[in-house]
């Protein structure tokens, strides 16, 4: 019985394998980028993607305001108090209006942040960094609508990004000191005199151990006491000592006067934690199929072991995973349903289409069920089949039509007519006389876009289109015809897989 976690042999790292790696550890790439990865060879290709620090990030340094929702100054509070006493409705109304304006400005800012992040995914030279940040955002899910503070969301996003491939312990400690999360799960109301169990419960159930994995209701109650006093002031974490319960606690069969950090340390000692994180990584990077195969379970177990042996360092585990036989197994190729972000970003990055309108793309992501900074609940995005229904199928197909042609249901260019030269995808297929064979183009482009050559019946349908426009079995390929072909391929159900 082979070990599915063992690395594939170097010679097996061919074009298909490299493309699979680039899709899963990133958002795909052009044929030239895939070939470059093959040139690097397995080990260096994996290192290149995982040790991303040296690569550029293009759209850093956008100015967002940290003080839109600042707290009232003492003077403002005094003005309001006096207005109330004097029943000065005009002043009260003015203050209410100003508050409303600040809130509106903050909602506009979260909109800008969504665009900023999506653009960053599209442009970054460190695709795995954004992919992991998105993974952790879904894992430590926090929603803007509940906390209504865009700066806190951005701050959390930065914390997740800077630790995304680092150590899971830092992420877990970071999240219990994160203003957005503390607010989202009501820990700002977790006080010695009236503990609030929300964060303690989700910390174990959703962030570290998994539902029902080796903890009890009592552990939640005691854990909540350890988390008392962890709150925030303005934009920063604040430990409110007066609200902290310093008494003796019993958590997961350990006794002591534990703090929140101790609570996290105790959780990390549980092997269940490494298994749960390995399981979540596996679902995100390897397979989202409803049933996990035997090799899959074995891989999760070995991935968990790697996390434990490396004291929760993520990079060694990720590198081993991205080299493993199971990761490249036939059943795991083209098998995950693309998230909306993956669909959008991968289409741009692999076909080299214009971005056209980040605003539109953000909106399309919302319609497809993935609103950045707004996961549907603390459980994050369920992913897999929940992305797909009879309406999102059309939104997905029409989003790729928009990227390729600029066309929307509002008309041919829907406000953007940036030219897109798709011919770069087939230039290398020209024969010595510079002529393109239409059938070869269909095969090549479909294989590239779908990750494998589709069956003969599918290819025949694509060829049928070419024949019908050109009136001959081998019509001339031009940009317009090629774009239409790309639209047709992106509308195939297979295109929703990566």
């Amino acid at each position: 019985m082979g070990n599915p976690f063992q690395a594939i042999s170097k010679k097996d790292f061919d074009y298909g394998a490299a493309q699979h790696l680039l899709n899963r550890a990133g958002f795909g790439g052009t044929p030239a980028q895939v070939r470059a990865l093959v040139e690097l060879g397995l080990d260096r290709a994996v290192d290149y993607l995982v040790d991303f620090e040296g690569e550029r990030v293009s759209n850093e340094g956008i100015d967002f305001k940290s003080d839109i929702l600042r707290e009232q100054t003492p003077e403002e509070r005094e003005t309001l108090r006096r207005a109330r006493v004097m029943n000065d409705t005009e002043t009260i109304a003015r203050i209410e209006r100003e508050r409303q304006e600040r809130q509106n400005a903050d909602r506009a800012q979260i909109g800008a942040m969504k665009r900023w992040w999506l653009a960053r995914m599209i442009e970054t030279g460190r695709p795995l960094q954004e992919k992991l940040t998105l993974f952790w955002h879904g894992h430590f899910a926090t929603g803007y609508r509940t906390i209504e503070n865009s700066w806190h969301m951005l701050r959390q996003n930065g914390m997740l990004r800077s630790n995304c491939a680092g150590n899971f312990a830092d992420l877990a400690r970071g999240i219990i000191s994160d203003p957005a999360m503390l607010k989202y799960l009501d820990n700002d109301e977790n006080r010695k005199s009236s503990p609030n169990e929300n964060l303690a419960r989700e910390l174990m159930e959703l962030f570290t151990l998994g539902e029902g994995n080796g903890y009890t209701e009592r552990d939640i109650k005691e854990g909540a006491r350890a988390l008392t006093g962890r709150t925030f002031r303005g934009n920063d974490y604040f430990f409110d000592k007066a609200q902290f319960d310093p008494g003796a606690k019993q958590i997961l069969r350990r006794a002591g006067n534990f703090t929140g950090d101790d609570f996290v340390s105790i959780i990390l000692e549980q092997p269940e934690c490494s298994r749960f994180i390995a399981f979540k990584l596996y679902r995100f990077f390897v397979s989202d199929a409803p049933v996990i195969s035997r090799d899959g379970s074995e891989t999760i177990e070995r991935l968990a072991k790697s996390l434990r042996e490396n004291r929760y360092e993520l990079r060694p585990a990720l590198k081993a995973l991205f080299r493993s036989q199971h990761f490249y197994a036939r059943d795991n190729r083209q098998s995950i349903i693309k998230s909306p972000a993956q669909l959008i970003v991968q289409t741009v990055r692999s076909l080299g289409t214009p971005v056209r309108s980040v605003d539109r793309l953000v909106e399309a992501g919302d319609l497809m069920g993935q609103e950045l900074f707004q996961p549907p609940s603390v459980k994050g995005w369920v992913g897999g089949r929940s992305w797909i229904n009879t309406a999102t199928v059309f939104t997905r197909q029409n989003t790729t039509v928009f990227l390729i042609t600029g066309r929307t249901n509002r008309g041919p260019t829907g406000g953007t007519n940036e030219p897109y030269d798709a011919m770069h995808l087939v230039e290398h297929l020209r024969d010595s006389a510079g002529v393109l064979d239409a059938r070869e183009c269909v095969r090549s482009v479909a294989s590239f876009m779908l990750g494998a050559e589709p069956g003969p019946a599918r290819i025949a349908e694509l060829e049928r289109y070419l024949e019908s426009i050109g009136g001959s079995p081998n019509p001339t390929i031009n940009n317009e015809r090629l774009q239409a072909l790309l639209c047709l391929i992106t509308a195939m159900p297979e295109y929703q897989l990566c």
Partner: protein
Amino acid sequence: MHDPAFTRRLFLQRGCALASLAATVPCFIERSALGMLGDPLLSSNPGVPDERILVIIQLGGGNDGLNTVVPFGSDDYFRARPQIGIRGPGAAPQNGQPAALALDGARGLGLHPNLTGFKELYDEGLLSIIQGVGYPNPNRSHFTSMDIWQTGRLDAKGSGWIGRYFDNTCNGTPKPEAAIAIGRNAPLALEGDVQKPVAFENASLFRWNGQDLHGSLKEPYDTLNRTGAGGFASDAADTQKAFLMRTALDAQVSSDRIRAAVAKPPLVPYPGHGLANQLKMIGAMIRDGMPTRVYYASMGGFDTHGGQLGPHANLMRQLSESVLAFQRDLKEQRNDARVTTMVFSEFGRRVKQNASGGTDHGTAAPMFFIGPAVKPGVWGNHPSLTDLDQGDLKFGVDFRSVYASVLEDWMKSPSEKILRGKFMNPGLFKAMS
């Protein structure tokens, strides 16, 4: 059916079989097991699908409940609303505003003068009004209060209440078109963890735009998307690919079906405004026998902070005309018995009018239920106009109790798990067999 002895007998007869199935077997098998047992719980009008339908109409912005169901019998009402109060039935027009429609004279209650359609439905025994619906510690933010109503949770967090209903009725793979919202975005209420709502603004958008690029694309597109899982016989396993093939096929079929359905002229005329168009589409889909259990329509503009008389009257007219046309359509289709319509808003408005002839965000407000299945009449007490909470009405009925009745009595589902708690079921529906 509400006969407890009967229910108990039923349980004894088949309790064991169902309990053992429920935990493990996918829902379609469970359903066929029910089918084999010949479930008398499901009605059996020949030719009429059994499944009951809930239509939700959301009034966005906070509808002014006090000017919708008008407590004209109270002097406090006119004291609080000297300019915008609506006079009792028979009174002369005031501030250009006609008098209220008679509803329940004994209790001093009337309907907004433009709710003539509601009045007709009321007189026919098809309208139920539940007064003073709200929740503890009312939140006056549109955003949050709407999320509270849609999640059915006071912390406004998590999935939607209807979404949880679907998640609970069938685990695993979502059902296509179980819930359809007319609009750009699907409301949170329909959002489950697994079950995701279908939303579209109008049926013509529910199609692939690529076919407009070139006439010869349509055929290969159709073949590529209509093959279904059957075209992949080797993919017999339940892979993600097979699932995508099936859903792509479903999408093509429902796109054709929905577009064909709404292209047919309705059986009764509808007015031309927004809500009416939405209900017209919903009516067409019901007529077509779509498997959809919950439809969601919405209407905005209820945030009437200033000069509200004219705009609010307009909204009332649109609401009333649309709902009346919809109900007539359903009756004409002979589908009325299996449809109940629910109307709600995220909150009502302040008792006292403000200085601009409008009203500010408030709390409790009436809800409406329409259809032959509802117990007609005015239910619950009108909240006191003097015993207020910061100038706002105190609620008498928790909206989650109302949901409990909808879930238990209409959707035939236990409510406790969905609502995360036991809420007293006020019994809004007639006992039916």
